[in-house]
Every structure is written in C-alpha cells, then in structure tokens.
C-alpha cells in the first residue's frame, strides 16, 4: 500500500460541484486555529455565498481536540452536514476518526512534515500533504508564531484548493491587522506559503469548489449572543445582573460593550445602565426581580445550570407578578453536562420553573435575527404580563457566526410598560388594590415604589388575595392563581406565532406534519426538501413561543401524524405539546438528536423515515 505524501494528482474524475460542499477542520485547541477558520468562513461570506461556520470546541483552554465545520451551499442549506468533502486534519490525536468521516472521493489535507501512518490510509480518499510545520519553521523564527502561522498556511492552501478569491482574503487580513503591519506581513507570508504550495503540487481548484455569487450582499455575519445583547440594548434594558457560564457569557460581554458605547450621557459622562456581576445565579435573578419590581427593564443571561438555581425566584416572580427577562443559552445537561455542546434540553424546566403551579412565557428563536427581535419582545411581554419571560436560545445559535439578514428597527417602537398606575391614575380611583381590576387578559395594574403613597402595597410570595393582603382562605387564594393561568393563556395571542409552511399549499395539508423549534430549523427544512424529492410530502411548523396558540393547535389537529424534531433525550417539546394542547399523544412521534452537535438534515431524514416505517 502506498503511503501518500505530498502529491495527489489525477483526482477521480468527479463531476464539478460549485458552492456546495462541507469542510471540517480538526485542530488542537489553544493553537490559534479559530482565527484561520473564521477568516475562511468570512471570506466565503464576502464572496457572496451562503455559508455557516460551526465551532465544535472542547470544555478546555488548551490541548484538546477542536473542530470547525464550514458548510457552503448555494441554496442556503447551511445546517451541519455529516458528509465531509474536505477534512483539514491538523490534530494527530484524532487522525483516525477525522479521516473516517470523509466521504468516498473526498479529500484530506494534512501536515506532511510528518508521514501519515499507513494504517490511516483509505484508498477511496485523496490525501493532500502540505509540509505546514516545516514551511513555517523555515519562514518564522518565533516559536509561538510558528504554531499560529501553520493555521493561516492551511487557510492559504484551502484558498487555492477551493478556488477562492485570494485578493479578497488578503483584504480581510489587511483590515484585521490594520495598524499592525508586522502581524499583517506575517499572516500574508503564511497565507502565501500554503497557497503557493497547493497551486504547485495539486490540481487546483478541486472539483468541489467555490465561485463568487451574490447571495450575501445585503446580509451580516453575527452570532446569536451579540444579537441578543443588541436587542436588550434597543429594548431599553438598564439593569443587568449575571454570573459567567458557558455559553451565555458573551451575551453580557456584548451588552457591556454596547452600553459603553451607547449609554454614556454625552454631557455628564454618567452611565445610563448598571451591570452587576453577581456572586451566583441566585443573586443574579434576585437583582433582576428587584429591579423589575422597582420599574427598570432588567435581565440576566445564563444556561441550564443557572436556571436550576433560579427556580425559586422565578416562582416568586410568577406568583407575585413581577417582570423579569431571562436569556437561557442552552447547553447539554444534565448537571454540568457538556458545557460546550448544544441541546434544547431546558424546555420543560423553563416552562414550569419552580415548585407549585407555575407556567412561564417562553420564546424560541432559531437564529440571530430572531434573537434580536425576540429579546425586544421579551421585555414587552414581561412588563405587559408582569411575569418572567425566558428566551431559549442555544449554544449553536449563540456562539457561532451566522449569515443573517440585516437587522431593522422601527423608530416608532414604544416600549410596552404594561398597566402601571401613576399619581394621576390614582386620583381617579377610590382605592388601589394590587391584584384587582384585572382586564380581560387577567392583568391587574401595578404601581411603582417611590411615586405615591396611595399606590403602596405589599408584594409577597406567600398566599395573597385580590387586595394584596395576606390570606390563608381557599377561595381567595384560588381566585388569584386561577387568574394567573388565565393571564398566561392570554399571552398565546401575543407571543411570536409559529412559522408554518404547507407543502401542498392552499389545497389542504399533507398527512404528515413535522414540528420543531429553535436551532433545528435549517436542518429540518433541508430534510423536508430531501424527503419531498423522495416523494414524501410534509408540512412544517416551527413553534416560536409558549403558551401555544390556536395556530399550533390547528396544525397538530390537521395532520394524522406529527413528527416532533428536537435536541434532547426526553422529547421535551413533544411532552409540552401533549400537556398544553389537545393533541393526543399517539399522534406525536419523535425524532431526537441529543449528542451535543448541531443538527444535520440526514439525522432528520433518517428519523422521519424510521417513524414512517413503524
């Protein structure tokens, strides 16, 4: 068996595929590969091609395997693919599993400074060896630089192999290192090392290659956590309290940066915000509840373990009817789980957080654009319904850069502060009682501290009656909790409606309905296209808020069989649908993918086929 090293010419005559490939880059974390990987992804975006870049990183600072997956697809199918066309194998620890993941006829780019073990060879795969370490050692003196520049060198090789626009990549480097000429020069040199080597030794471009398109000109590259922070800024949040936890930390980092830029009074230099790094999540939610009670728009951002700690005060805010906004960027549980892997595993916990009868308003964004819009909606809902609102994002949405439509803002937006009585309103009534005078949505007006003594009342988590007084009388207690569930139900008409796409158009629904939420969106859509091509028609519903409204009920009702796709072990969305809608359990089946990596269309197709066969 021939050990392949350095050259590979005469590729199997594959048909050319333009702007449709999946690339996986395997590295050791802490060696600076993130920079090279995002450079590539950004360059592809600038070439106008729909692209996604997913960072699959370990819960570690240095030394463990990390992967970056780039999916390029001219039709916008940028969910994770499992069929890799090109593997950049930079981590000898994982050579075997990385090489095994390449599709037949695909390519492996590896550092040929050291020979590949013959046992790793696959006859159905092309091995492209580039002596990256050797070249970098020859051209760079500093040890750290030698390690960092290897990554830029392989980026250069990929530019050649994929037929990418070299000047565009050079421009990106120039912009990134503007004012740092030495760094720019080093990066340029490394880029060319790889590029020139590839051009010289391989047939460039490969059959699977990229060409400039015009699909991203009006779009931006942004991660969900930054978009969330932007939404909180625009909604007028002034108080934020948090405790660091992967993968939500960058929400608050971004919010802080935005506040430093936009919330400093130009005349006095005073800060129109207060961010408190709390001692734990219990304190963080306490601060949010205290601030919301006192009339500020306040929020916290956390992940599953933080929500567990926040349960008690979420229940207090629910029963005492205090607005609070919580951003939950979900990761794999239970317990510490896998902090750097993605799931939608907090659905049930958030829907019912806290002991006793509690039900919260939830929002399920699928991408950064919805993170922005739903963050704003969260504050309006929280204050309008005087209750906690939890926005369930996830690690894949939050921490990766996504191609997103440009965010827009309507300057005529006015924050919905809900029913708050001021001094003038108190003039017009005989007496104010906190939990009375509810409207048809069950919301009773509140007053804010410090405004007027006639508005004073006592907020408590203990049993209270419609007058805000302490009670242990059954009817009085029940009257209040019954109104709370009425209030929650009323929110169904106000939370974002589900996205529904019927495969057969107006003429009637297909018998199969596929239901999902959040980050599963792109993979499910792609899967529906694949299924349709195989003659399996299905309608699509992506729920975006809880409580579920009439549209959700109607969709479930209209289909003989519904398959609920989600990323958790216990089919939590399915469970919530059975608990909170009229849909019978037997009608709802599950397709579950909960290993921690972002969902791929293949998993959905396989799962749906499996359900249809049973």
């Amino acid at each position: 068996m021939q050990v392949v090293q350095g050259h590979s010419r005469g590729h199997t005559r594959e048909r050319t595929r333009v702007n449709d490939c999946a690339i996986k880059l395997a590295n050791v974390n802490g060696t600076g590969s993130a920079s090279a990987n995002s450079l590539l992804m950004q360059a592809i975006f600038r070439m106008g091609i729909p692209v996604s870049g997913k960072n699959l990183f370990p819960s570690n600072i240095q030394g463990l395997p990390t992967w970056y997956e780039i999916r390029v697809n001219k039709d916008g199918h940028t969910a994770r693919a499992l069929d890799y066309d090109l593997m950049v194998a930079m981590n000898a620890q994982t050579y075997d599993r990385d090489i095994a993941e390449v599709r037949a006829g695909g390519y492996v780019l590896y550092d040929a400074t050291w020979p590949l073990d013959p046992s790793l060879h696959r006859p159905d795969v092309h091995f492209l060896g580039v002596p990256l370490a050797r070249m970098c050692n020859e051209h760079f003196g500093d040890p750290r630089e030698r390690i960092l520049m290897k990554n830029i060198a392989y980026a250069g090789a990929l530019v050649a192999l994929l037929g990418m626009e070299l000047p565009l990549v050079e421009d990106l480097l120039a912009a990134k290192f503007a004012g740092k000429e030495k760094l720019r020069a080093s990066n340029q040199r490394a880029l060319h090392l790889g590029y020139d080597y590839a051009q010289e030794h391989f047939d460039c471009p490969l059959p699977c290659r990229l060409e400039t398109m015009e699909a991203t000109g009006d779009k931006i590259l942004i991660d969900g956590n930054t978009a969330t922070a932007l939404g909180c800024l625009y909604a007028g949040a002034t108080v934020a309290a948090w405790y660091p936890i992967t993968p939500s930390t960058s929400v608050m980092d971004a919010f802080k940066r935005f506040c430093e830029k936009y919330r400093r009074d130009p005349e006095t230099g005073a800060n129109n915000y207060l961010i408190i790094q709390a001692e734990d999540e219990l304190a963080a939610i306490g601060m949010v509840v205290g601030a919301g009670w006192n009339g500020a728009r306040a929020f916290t951002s956390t992940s599953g373990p933080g929500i567990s700690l926040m349960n008690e005060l979420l229940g207090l805010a629910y029963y005492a009817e205090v607005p609070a906004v919580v951003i939950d960027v979900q990761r794999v549980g239970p317990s510490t789980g896998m902090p750097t892997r993605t799931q939608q595993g907090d659905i049930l916990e958030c829907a019912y957080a806290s002991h006793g009868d509690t039900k919260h308003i939830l929002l399920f964004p699928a991408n950064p654009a919805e993170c922005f819009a739903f963050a704003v909606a969260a504050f309006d809902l929280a204050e309008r319904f005087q209750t906690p609102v939890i926005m369930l994002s996830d690690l894949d949405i939050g921490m990766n850069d996504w191609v997103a439509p440009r965010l827009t803002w309507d300057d005529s937006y006015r924050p919905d502060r809900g029913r708050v009585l001021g001094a003038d309103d108190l003039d017009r009534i005989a007496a104010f009682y906190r939990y009375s005078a509810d409207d048809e949505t069950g919301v009773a007006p509140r007053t804010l501290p410090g405004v007027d003594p006639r508005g004073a009342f006592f907020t408590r988590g203990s049993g209270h009656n419609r007058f805000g007084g302490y009670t242990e009388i059954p009817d009085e207690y029940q009257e209040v909790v019954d109104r709370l569930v009425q209030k929650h139900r009323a929110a169904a008409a106000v939370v974002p409606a589900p996205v529904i796409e019927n495969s057969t158009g107006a003429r009637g629904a297909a018998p199969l309905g596929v239901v999902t939420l959040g980050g599963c969106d792109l993979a499910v859509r792609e899967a529906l296209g694949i299924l349709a091509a195989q003659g399996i028609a299905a309608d699509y519903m992506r729920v975006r808020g809880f409580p579920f409204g009439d549209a959700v009920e109607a969709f479930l009702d209209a289909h003989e069989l519904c398959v609920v796709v989600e990323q958790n072990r216990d089919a939590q969305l399915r469970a919530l649908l059975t608990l909170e809608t009229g849909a019978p359990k037997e009608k709802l089946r599950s397709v579950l993918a909960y290993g921690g990596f972002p969902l791929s269309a293949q998993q959905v197709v396989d799962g749906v086929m499996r359900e249809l066969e049973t």
Partner: protein
Amino acid sequence: MPSITKPLVTYPGLQRNALDLTMRDYEGSMSTLCAGCGHDSVTAALVRALWELAIPPHRVVKLSGIGCSSKTPTYFVGGAHGFNSAHGRMPAIATGANAANRDLVYVGISGDGDSLSIGLGQLSHAMRRNVRMVYVIENNGVYGLTKGQFSASADVGSRAKRGEPNRLAPIDPVMLGLSIGATFIARSFSGDKEQLVPMLKAAVAHRGFALLDVISPCVTFNDHAGSTKSYLYTRQHEIKATETDFVPPAQEITATIGPDRVTSVAMHDGSLVAFRSVPDGYDPTDRPSVVAYLQERQSKGEIVTGVLYLDESVDDLHAMNGTSATPLARLEHETLCPGAAELERLQAGFR
C-alpha cells in the same frame, strides 16, 4: 407599638414632623407576632426614627426575607411599597431595587436565620458592594417561625427548648461585616429605644450599606435562663461602646451626649453623626482597633453595642459604577435606544 391598635382620631397634642405628619403616618398594620416579641420594639424604633427624619412615607422601600422578623415590614410605614421576598435572598432583591432607583430609602429587615445561614452569601456580597440601604438583623438565635431550631448565631452550649446544646461556633454579623469591608456596623438591643433611634437615623443617612445587628429576644423559643439572646442575659452583659447622637443638616449641634470624647462624622447629606466613646480610646473609624476591642470584650461574654464602626469615604454601588443621577427606572426610552439609523450604521461592522 405595632401590637396595639391606635385610635384614628387625631388630637392637637399629637406631634408633627417637618412634613406635618404624625407618627401614625409611619405605622403599618397590626403585628401578628407573639406578645412581648423583641421585633415589635425594633419596629417601633424604626417608626420613630423615620418620623423624626421626616422621610416622605412613599419614598421608603421595605424589604425582607422570610421569618418572623421578615413579617415586620407590614407593621411600619403603610404608605411605602414592601417586598417580602424569599428566605435569604433579600439582599439581592434589594440590590436590584436600589440599582433601578437610587433615590429611595431602602430598609431591609431580616433575621439571624435569614441572614446568617441561607443568606450569608448574599448578605456578604451586598456589604462588599456597599449597596445603600439600612439592613437590620433582628437576632434571636433561633428559627422562630419554624418553631425553635438553632440559628447560626446561637452560642456554643446554649440550649433549645428541647434537645442537645448547640456545639457549632456562632456567626457574628458584626465581625463578618468588619472582615468584609462593611462601612457602617452597629449593634443594639430591641429593648433600648434610646440607643436604637439615633442609630437608625445615622444608618439612613449613611451613604452605603448600614448593618445593624439588633438582639431581639424570642419570648417563645429563646428567652429562657440559658439563652445568651434573652432579655435577661443581654441586659446583664451589655457594654455600650459608643453613644450616638444624630444631627440633621442645618440644625445646631446640641450637646445631648456630653462634649468629652466625641467623634463626629459628616454624612453625605449634610447631617452629622456624633459618637461619644464610652470606653477610653474607642475609635469607631479605626477598623483594627474596633476588631481587637470587640474580640476582647466578646471573649468575656459581653455584648458590645452602639455604632461600632463607620466609614463614610467608600463609594456606594452607584458611585462605584458612575450611574446617572436620574434613577435608571425613570430614564426615557429615547435616551436608552440608539435608533434605526445607528443600527444601520453599526451593522456595517458585522461583515
């Protein structure tokens, strides 16, 4: 007294403060605590202090956790909003409320269970942040509301109504505050209204976290002979470290506590807190000597009371963070939202 119903009729002799309000205007509902409970006396002192200071009732914010002491906010200043929250979590809620509106007077009532067990962490961090509030621990060494378990402040060897003597070392909130950087630390006794009232007034004037550890005997569960938090023990073993006078702004200093050994500290609102140190050399502004003195006295079983430590030089939460003078909860949307044009502009960087 909050446990005695007052007539609603006013009479000419009823004293009025600078706002033309009587003490009735600073009272709340009837107390449902046990007859003779120390907490009711603390409530009465608080009513008096707030009335004397002429704080508009609606500008007071009452906060508490859970426990017998945490019930008391309903018993004072009926014209103020109150929040009886969760066990041990009042400091965070107070921090958030304070963050939203820096202009109100925050009074937090807690107990030794609420603050020294479950609440120990949040209390400690609220002190570190120097959140401007008056924090009263009504300390009786037991969990009254759940019927008599030891709290973290119970002394070694003290006995509950039934069962084994306590063997765990007590947590002293005053020593905790001193080691954590609290900027106003005081201890008193529910039975000593003369000491409590000026102490509470100084606490309100303090621009930061004011910790008051108030021995408040539990007549039902811990007022027996062996208890170090009983009326009897406290009266027998109390040592006053300072006597305090509170001088509101723009008022002439009247020598009510005697001219000798008087330290005066100016408060940020222009008022003055004057201490007469009882023991020689006690300096309430010198942390190390305060610590030494307290440890020495307490090793002898003595309960040292008074405004024990005061530092007016530390920024409070808002000063530390440079927040706007206008309360954050009152800022207009236009001030907070950058607008559509700016969103267009800033997105140019997201490419």
